[in-house]
């Protein structure tokens, strides 16, 4: 099962990198969303994948006697999902505002902070 998931993670990363190399902000943001999901799956896979095993220990035992899922990656992924989702939401709003104000979603045309024909500093006075 790990092999399949790993191949899927690789695919996700490929798609994410391809989208992030685009010059359109919306595509970059979609790439970031996919990257976040790829990372989450990577953490999850790193914590050992098990099927149909709850991360529970019977109440009368201290040490599990049957296979149990590792609960820690689930906690980590939960944190990471919340964070990456909120950041994606913020960046989406930011990109929309930037599109409204700057009239473009192409990053090559966003030259306000770094003007294209920048003057060289004064050489003398």
């Amino acid at each position: 099962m790990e092999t399949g998931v790993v191949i899927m993670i690789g695919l996700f990363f490929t798609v994410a990198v391809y989208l992030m190399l685009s010059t359109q902000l919306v595509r970059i943001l979609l790439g970031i969303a996919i990257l976040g999901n790829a990372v989450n799956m990577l953490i999850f896979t790193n914590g050992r994948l098990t099927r149909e095993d709850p991360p529970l220990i019977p109440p009368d035992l201290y040490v599990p006697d049957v296979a149990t899922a590792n609960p820690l990656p689930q906690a980590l992924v939960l944190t990471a999902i919340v964070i990456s989702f909120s950041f994606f939401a913020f960046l989406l709003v930011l990109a929309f505002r930037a599109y409204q104000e700057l009239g473009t979603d192409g990053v090559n045309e966003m030259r306000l902070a770094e003007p294209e024909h920048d003057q060289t500093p004064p050489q003398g006075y």
Partner: protein
Amino acid sequence: MAGSSVSVDISQAMTTAAIPAGDWLVVAPTLITILGGSLCLMLRKNTDLQPKIGIGFLALLVLANLALLIRVLDHGVITMVMGSWLPPFGIAFTVDTLGVTLSMIGSIVAFCAGVFGVATVDSTGRRYGFYPFLLLLMTGVSGAFLTGDIFNLYVWFEVLLISSYGLLILGNDRIQLDGAVKYGVLNLVATNLFLIATGLLYGIFGTLNMADIAMKVAALENPASGTLATVAALYFLAFAMKAAAFPVNFWLPASYHTPNVVVSAVFAGLLTKVGVYALIRVFVLLLPASRGYMSDVVAAVAIATLLTGALGALAQSEVRRLLGYVVIAGIGSMLAGISVGSTLALSGAIFYAVHSIIVMTALYMVSGIMCMMGGSYDLRKLGGLYQKSAAFAGVFLVLGFAVSGLPPFSGFWPKVILVDAAFSDGRAWLGAAILVSGFLVTLAMGRIWIFAFWRGGPEGTPDGEAAPSADGSAIQLTGGAVWLPLGILTALVVYFGLQPEWMIELSTRGAGGIVEPFGYLRSVFGEQG
């Protein structure tokens, strides 16, 4: 629990003894800032009360960090675990000399920025949440410096990142949206890389506690294996992006000049240095073997960063963008220290980080005051500031000397240590690059001095004629709120320059504590560690 087949000693997994009262200081910086931040958020619309509360809490933060520093110097490394679970089960806050020193200096800078904000952030900016965001930014920064858990380091990075987004677009100008897009996207990619590396590290060792990882790495037969090398390379790329090292530095000059000047000041002081701190932590404490064979790569990156920063500064005519490149040049010096990696070099890097936090914040504040006096950030339109205030010109000269690494101010000593360490390690190129970069930065600072301060008026006016006074829309200088923070920071720059012994000892202890982390490990795992 009747019928249990195995008996387990719970005291192995949990702390049973009460935590000494003084150790609660460990969580004080994060608690203070998060409380103050929420309080300011509740009083968002009361723009008169907000600065008082914000500055009050920032002053408390400085005091808490000072107490924590004293306690760490007395008792050695302090660990506090959450929920009484002992590491590696519980999340740990582990405070060593390196973390608490940077946290201390960071809180001083934040306090100064809070005071400076009284003069430069208008009531609109306050209503949009300058003080809540500043305090929550400090939650993230303090947490990152004090945590002993690598996943929590990621979480604190995100806390400071989301607050920095809020600060960056405060004011909602078009240019700010442009800068924020670049800053936001690239920093998010960097934190995702950090998370990838952390996920892989967890997959290898099954633990996230830094001390536990350090022990497991040390116990490996082949600590320089390919898997660990991948993780180390990912960490290096992620933190180099955070710290704005070449070639992943271009988001910094694109965004740092867009927000309110006090926001630029905090960012330039703190944020890149958190990246450098994380780099030191990961490369020296967690993966020392990887640092060994990656040190040539780090050295090349350091040299390139030193030179791009300095040359970029020379090519700018806008003061704040020029300073953005000076920040990058400073990052190069710290990377040089990490590349050499001896205790001496690391102490130089730590001292340089402290110096850079103070001096870059002060210089951005100076650029704000220059704009208030001269009405522009453009070197072509500035002039005659010396005539307006000779004392202010003196302050700029002090800071300019310090940032170029000239004696007798705070930049001199860490550069001496770094160059000495580079030469004694047989890396003459690295030492030479630090010196060349220092020379070029001196030229850039000299250019600001000549055009903004020394000549009589702006470009086009005959020399000797005073610059036209700032138009009415420019923010007026309001006494103490402007000069007090700048005064504090300049005094620190002069003090560290004239009395460097204290700081050198502190940074040597900090460097020693991570090169040979016995104290760190013992603090986390008790005596058996």
